[in-house]
């Protein structure tokens, strides 16, 4: 804001922010600390925050308890989640950016109608098609490709790319066209390299949503050999009696990949969220 704050105001700002931030951070600290503590010390009142007896025992216990055909393999769950995220993100970037380019820059019959269709499909939340999809592909349950395919084409991603491409001046492509480049060449050689922010934002938002994806695996997966991590997390935390140390260690392993991506690409995360909304 316009004026320079007084030292007292500045102090108050920090104080209010710190109190609020602690509400957001304490559960996360509790998760990380707890994952390093013996199980019986976690559900132990406020001393759950004391950093005593720290060790990686819970992690090795998770990895060894999820290491057989009857319990499933931890690294397999992780691998499946990573593979699904990779396929959905890269496949989605290709397919949706191409679609948006075709809709924003190329002239063809029916273009307006297709764009309207995409805007309409954007209104349909995945939840409202989950049941019929589950029925349609019921004989494909427990296959990897059915876990990924429905999420590659994404109306909202098309829309985000479309908004970005329309802000690129047409004169930039004209030079390429004069040099004889076709639409594919123009797209991959000129448009894609200058649209890195859009690609990064869409990629990160897609990754975030896909990594936490839960409803579809609940419906489609019963076989542990194709189970993604969040679903296994819900199975693992339901064990009786709960072993809190191991459950929290599992939780850290589940969130670590996103936190790493978040730490490196924070700017794009935030920009992706903000631009999707303010422009939308």
């Amino acid at each position, binding site marked *: *804001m*316009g*004026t320079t704050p007084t030292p007292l105001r500045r102090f108050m*700002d920090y104080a*209010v*922010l710190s109190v*609020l*931030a602690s509400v*957001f*951070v304490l*559960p*996360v600290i*509790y998760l990380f600390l707890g994952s390093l503590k013996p199980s019986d010390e976690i*559900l*132990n*009142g*406020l001393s759950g925050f004391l950093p005593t007896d720290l060790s990686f025992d819970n992690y090795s216990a998770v990895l060894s308890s999820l290491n057989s055909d009857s319990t499933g393999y931890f690294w397999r769950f992780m691998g499946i989640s990573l593979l699904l995220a990779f396929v959905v993100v890269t496949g989605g970037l*290709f*397919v949706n950016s*191409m*679609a948006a380019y*075709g*809709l924003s820059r190329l002239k063809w019959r029916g273009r307006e109608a297709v764009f309207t269709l995409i805007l309409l499909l954007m*209104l*349909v939340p995945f*939840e*409202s*098609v*989950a*049941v*019929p999809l589950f*029925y349609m592909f019921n004989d494909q349950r427990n296959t990897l490709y059915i876990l990924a*395919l429905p999420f*590659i*084409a994404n109306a909202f991603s098309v829309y985000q790319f479309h*908004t970005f491409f329309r802000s690129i001046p047409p004169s930039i492509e004209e030079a390429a066209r004069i040099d004889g480049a076709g*639409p*594919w060449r123009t797209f991959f050689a000129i448009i894609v390299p200058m649209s890195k922010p859009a690609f990064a934002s869409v990629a990160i938002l897609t990754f975030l949503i896909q990594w*936490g994806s*839960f*409803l579809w695996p609940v*419906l489609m997966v019963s076989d542990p050999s194709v189970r993604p991590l*969040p679903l296994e997390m*819900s199975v693992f*935390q*339901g064990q009786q009696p709960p072993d809190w140390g191991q*459950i*929290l260690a599992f*939780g850290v392993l*589940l*969130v670590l990949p*996103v936190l790493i991506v978040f730490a490196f690409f*924070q700017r794009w*995360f*935030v920009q992706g*969220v*903000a*631009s999707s*909304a*303010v422009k939308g």
Partner: protein
Amino acid sequence: MSAPAVVGLIVFVGVPFGYAVVLSFYNVRLGSPLEPSFFGLEQYRRLFTDPDLSGPFLRALLNNLTFAVFVVPVQTALALALAILLNRKLKAIGLFRSLFFMPVVFPMALVAVIWRLILARSDQGMLNSALDAVSFGNWGAFDWLGDSATAMASIVVLSIWQGVGFQMVILLAGLQQIPGELYEAAELDRASRWQQFRHVTLPGIHSTLVFVAMLTSVLSFRVFDQVYVLVRGGGLDEDATRTVMYQAVTTAFDQNNIGQASAITVVFFLIVVVLTLIQRRVVRPGNED
């Protein structure tokens, strides 16, 4: 060039959506030897009038409404407060932004587990022992998730914790588009901070604010993951927290009743589409591109 995405969207969104409507007119059961039979509007009639079915379904609708009535205003107001606090030049402001945004990257399946511990019913649960400490032992253990009076409130709290950073970032972007000169002019006119907020900030982010509120209400109708995880393994009161999506999934999946579940899906879609259309109607003016 647009073909692959368009085909994908038609196969995985368009067709199943139409199929949901068709299935809702049939009596379809998964794994039943009987052929599906045409049922007309029977599934809908049952949803709203058959006591066995309409009880849980209407309860789910009511729970969704309760969730939205609390989450939408509280989360929006909190997001706005955070955005205003963060929209100033302070050292470490970037760190604070990251801290508030961090829960957004946590998968709901994990958020549910963390809060299962915080709200644990034993006197050693985090919240119970904190309350015990501040009340000098006058607060006994309370079963936050299992008690029907607080189960929904618990879901509301953990959902706001996870989601508020998302709205905050959107509002922050809106705040940063307000020209600084407006505040300088207000200052010259000796406007108080409250007056600046009322006459400069609020009008400046009006459309963003409406957008965020509507987005939150659409998202709040889609609540499913946290309820499912906690009901299945965390001692959450099922009746007090079942939502429309939870009802659709259990009907399709546990009872194999696809026709009934499709009817729930269609009702769910109609609610979401009405909310989305209101959003478009409200946000469009002044945001024309």
